[in-house]
């Protein structure tokens, strides 16, 4: 069975983001970019399924400008077999992403489609569910354990107040929670080897997909700052302050 993993290039999670002076967006020029951490977990899960003999081939896919190839190289260095870059310009929103991915899924016919549960830049958490909807496929979101059994995949999902286990007909769309696995480190020889693996280039237009944004961003702003607090010297003083603030 083939697995397709969608990965996104985002501002590295350790970077303190800054808003552009004109308030039109977040500064990304000259900022360290990385693979979205949830997507790295999705790649790792595909690799583990391959090591268990469930998956035979792993295809990594990303959407965006040509520079997004670097996250595909990362996925290839982790162990993905080949990669697809769908060149698309301008802002991509989850519905557009889902439509582009649907076109790639129809070309590749994977049995499992893996994504991260959300990207750490737009925090939308929608692409996987939207893709499953467009494909008419079952979805296993916020997955913390994945087991393929026959023509079904059993998924343990992180939900409010505990976990839930569902069984989905294949092909299915899964989105990875942080707790699904611990992604492996990329070793230098693998990075060198990844340079020889193929990256196929497609374009949004070539796939016949209209991925234009539906939502218009009017502005971005920094959240209101909290007034600086005080350091107290003892537990007794802390207890007194909390009583004065009438919160205990």
């Amino acid at each position: 069975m083939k697995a397709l993993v969608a990965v996104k290039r985002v501002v590295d999670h350790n970077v303190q983001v800054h808003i552009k002076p004109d308030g039109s967006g977040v500064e990304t020029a000259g900022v360290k970019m990385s693979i979205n951490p949830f997507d790295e977990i999705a790649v790792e899960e595909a690799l583990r399924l391959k090591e268990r003999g469930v998956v035979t081939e792993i295809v990594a896919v990303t959407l965006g400008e040509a520079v997004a190839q670097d996250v595909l190289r990362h996925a290839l260095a982790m162990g993905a077999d080949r990669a697809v870059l769908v060149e698309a310009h301008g802002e991509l929103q989850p519905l557009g992403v889902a439509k582009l991915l649907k076109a790639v899924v129809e070309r590749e016919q994977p049995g499992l489609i893996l994504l991260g549960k959300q990207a750490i830049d737009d925090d939308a958490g929608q692409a996987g569910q939207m893709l499953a909807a467009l494909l008419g496929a079952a979805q296993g979101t916020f997955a913390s354990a994945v087991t393929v059994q026959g023509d079904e995949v059993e998924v343990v999902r992180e939900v409010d107040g505990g976990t839930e286990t569902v069984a989905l007909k294949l092909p299915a769309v899964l989105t990875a929670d942080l707790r699904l696995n611990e992604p492996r480190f990329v070793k230098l020889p693998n990075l060198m080897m990844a340079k020889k693996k193929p990256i196929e280039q497609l374009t949004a237009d070539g796939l016949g997909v209209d991925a234009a944004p539906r939502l218009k961003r009017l502005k971005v702003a920094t959240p209101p700052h909290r007034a600086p607090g005080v350091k107290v010297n003892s537990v007794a003083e802390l207890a007194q302050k909390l009583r004065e603030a009438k919160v205990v």
Partner: protein
Amino acid sequence: MSVLILAEHDGQHLKQATRQAVTAAQAWGLPVHLLLLGADTAAVAGHAAQVAGVARVLRVDAPQFEHPLAEDVAAAIVNLARDYKVVLAGHTAFAKNALPRAAALLDVAMLADVIAITAPATYVRPVYAGNVLATVESSDPIQVLTVRTTAFAAAETGGAAEVVTLAAPAASGLSRWVGETRNVSDRPELATARVVISGGRSLGERFEEVLGPLAQLLNGALGATRAAVDAGFAPNDIQIGQTGTVVAPELYIAAGVSGAAQHLAGMKDSKVIVAINHDPDAAIFQVADYGLVADLFEAVPQLTAALKN
């Protein structure tokens, strides 16, 4: 045109998140309808009809909704949504799972975790782990969104909505429910607790022993950092942050929490923040109203004792 709210319930009562969504729904000045999906929603429909601000309760009873799955929930929403201007729900795991699927089937965009509705189709939502607030305008014919529950007060009772029973679409057959594990607790629900006591990895195995008595005393909920959860010291569902639960209690006490951006995204709208940490340079002190540099294993029990008197 009206507003449709995807209700969440435990078979008896509506979840707090749904009452908060009812408050958010008043922003449009349109009639508000609650969609109740379940195996038998008779009891919960009675409660739902009393929520102030709700005009109509739509009951859809079907066997597949005993444990509602995204495939069936989205189908039920899509069945109705074309007659609505807005489809919304609280930003919970249930809605995060089902609403994007419904939005895609309706070919409209979705807005997640909205914290303010500034005009009928203009919203403010946090991005980049809450470090940036984006104002976004939607031009779609149906507005599909989830609202951050802590940003809206829960609707009170006192209403008298009509209750209408509707037929369910056929079950999708794509997925089936296998089982669940629930973390049972007699403490208040984390997302809505008035007081939250949270701990980091440094608490180790003594998480409950050290923080439990203070939570008990203040009738608070326990929360945890991702590190504490990953290390197995606290259950997953009490993780606070960008990838866990977002809380905004009146009092947030962080013990042994360094204050990573991921964690701050989940608690920095709390009214009063207290930090207890032995590291005076910990980032948590920058958002704390009251900071105490101390060993939490001594300070937390002392604070519990001091507040008891």
